[in-house]
């Protein structure tokens, strides 16, 4: 009976979605605000990557909200994981190739991660993407050597300071008499590495926070599994 109602609901929802989709005009999005941003963004924010100018400039507070959601999810997971100690997980050491491959990839991944973060205002990429790569760099050795531990204190310090510096940059603009999160120091340097004012700094904060957050969460998961 329950399955039947579920099926009916799913079918109805699917039918509704199809009916809606048939009425939509695909391929011709209304570029009302989008078009305006496209034409004004490079002058207003100094970033050649339009996505960045939207993510950190026009909708900066959304990004702050997204960061907070990630933080809340990690904190909530920590609350739940901190109490439960499953005994699962047999600690098999990784093989030679995995161990040394992991160690060799670590600096490469770090370089790529930071490259993507620092060029977020110029090319596709940015803090979120680069941060995930940073976290992967830390997690690879952890997979290869299940016994290894990450320094949790260090990670949470990086994470906390990165998150708060995002807000501090925003508040700095406020104390200068401008609006909260207003991009400062916009100069006539469009397209150079040092350009776009505070946006690269914001992206660095985002990248460090996301990286530390994910690395901490993953190692937390790994540890919960290995604890007896």
């Amino acid at each position, binding site marked *: 009976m329950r399955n039947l109602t579920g099926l009916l609901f799913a079918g109805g929802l699917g039918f*509704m979605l199809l009916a809606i989709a048939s009425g939509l005009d695909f391929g011709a999005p209304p570029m009302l605000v989008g078009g305006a941003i496209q034409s004004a963004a490079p002058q207003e924010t100094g970033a050649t990557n339009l996505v960045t100018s939207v993510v950190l400039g026009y909708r900066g*507070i*959304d990004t702050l909200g997204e960061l*907070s959601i990630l933080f809340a999810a990690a904190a909530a997971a920590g*609350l739940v994981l901190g109490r439960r100690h499953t005994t699962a997980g047999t600690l098999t050491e990784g093989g030679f190739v995995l161990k040394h491959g992991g160690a060799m990839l670590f600096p490469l991944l770090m370089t790529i991660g930071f490259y993507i973060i620092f060029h977020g205002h110029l090319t596709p990429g940015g803090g979120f993407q680069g941060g995930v790569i940073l976290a992967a760099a830390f997690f690879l050795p952890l997979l290869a050597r299940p016994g290894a531990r990450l320094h949790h204190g260090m990670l949470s*310090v990086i994470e906390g300071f990165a*998150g*708060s510096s995002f807000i501090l940059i925003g508040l700095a603009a406020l104390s200068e008499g401008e609006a909260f999160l207003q991009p400062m120091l916009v100069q006539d340097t469009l397209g150079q590495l040092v350009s776009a004012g505070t946006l690269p700094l914001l992206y660095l904060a985002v990248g460090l926070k996301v990286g530390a957050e994910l690395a901490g969460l993953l190692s937390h998961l790994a540890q919960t599994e290995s604890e007896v």
Partner: protein
Amino acid sequence: MSDLIVLPLVLPLFGAFLLPIVMRTSISIGAWIGPAILAYGCWILGDQWMSGTALPFSLAIGGFAPPMGINLYIDSLALLFAFAVQLLGLLFWPFKIDQETARRQALMLLLVAASTGLALSGDLFNLYVFYELVAVATFGLIAASGSSAAYASTIRYLILSGIGSVLTLLGIALIYSQTGTLNLAHLAQLAPEQLNNKLGLTAFLTILIGVGVKAELFPVNTWAPEVYATAASRVSAFLAGLVSKLALLIILRLLVLIFHQPEAVQVMLVLGILGVITGELAAWRAKDVRRMLAFSSIGQLGMIFIALAIPEQGGLLAVLALTFHHLLIKSGLFMLADGWGGAIEKLRGAAKRSPLAAAIFVLFSLSLIGMPPLPGFWAKFTLITQLAAQTSPLYLIGLTVFLLATVIEAAYLFRLAALLYGPAAEDTPIDTIPKPAGLSLATASLFGIGLLAAALFIAPVGDLLNHVAGQAANADLYINTVLAGTGGSQ
């Protein structure tokens, strides 16, 4: 001065990020960060209210004028809600010190920040971001009570809430695909031409159901009883008292600004009526105090949805009166339930154990039922007169259900009151009857005092709410304030 209004939204986030670091070095310093930030937030918002700056005004974040950037819209309704968020955050602050303190307090700060954002934001997608943040922070806070029942209810809530979020996002995507903007004021300008059709109505319905998960709307409220029965009372109080009302605020803004179709209102009326019937009947049958309160809260929110279906200033006045009344009462009742959790039968004779708690319960019950001269009477009276003035038969059904629900409400609340004041069961010594802890009782008394104060000053409170409702019902004012007002770097 008005620039500072962003601080109550941002500082709790700042505190939440830093709290784990500070707690690592000194718990005694860290324990003061949260309350200090919330107190400062109260002061800023209170100061804004007192300073008599012309309301409403709009604040562009990042200095990008709406609709390009995101703006905060501050009218007296938003200010009132934001102040209530900070104040209740302070009252329901999780003081308990143990090894999870940092995480719990950080989540509470995030919840307060997100709720403030819900009250102030003037951008549809920004509202969605804060709505998600509220959801995620709530999952953690509910699970923090640590019992396996709490985990189970969190999972249920998580799934339902996830479905709601997807539906909301679908609605927002539909709106964006039709208009190309997300700013509420800009949408309000475009809506009569571009959203006054079937697609617009679908978008409203998906958002209504999606946001309705938090507002305890009829078919998507099954999480509420379990969550409120298993989470810490302070969390339940904050959720039932405030977060549900913030979800209502989103729907209210959408109705006033964007969706004027009669069908939208009718759907809400029907769902509200069903919510009242199911909620009150379930509360009548409930055997557990907190479940009873949860079901009664579903019924109460159903009543608010009925009121919301009258899209005029009068209807809005009824919405606000019911909302703030329920906010006071339910928060207080959940604080009482802090010590009174569990089966109703166990409370036999509890009035002798804690006379003050029983007296406060009776006070809240009387106001909830609508006994003059308590504020509950005026709130319900406003709704009844508004409903009776409508011509459509659906509103009269709403009126009938509303009156019947009041009878049921009286039945189950008085049944509990009779138990409280009845003789204790013979085999239980009086010391074993549960009683609310001191701090919870003190908090509940504060809400009781607030209720009595509102009863004494009912005329100014009514005028104030009427003024707030008038401002909130004025869509043109919203559009002009945001789009013509303080753009640029203000």
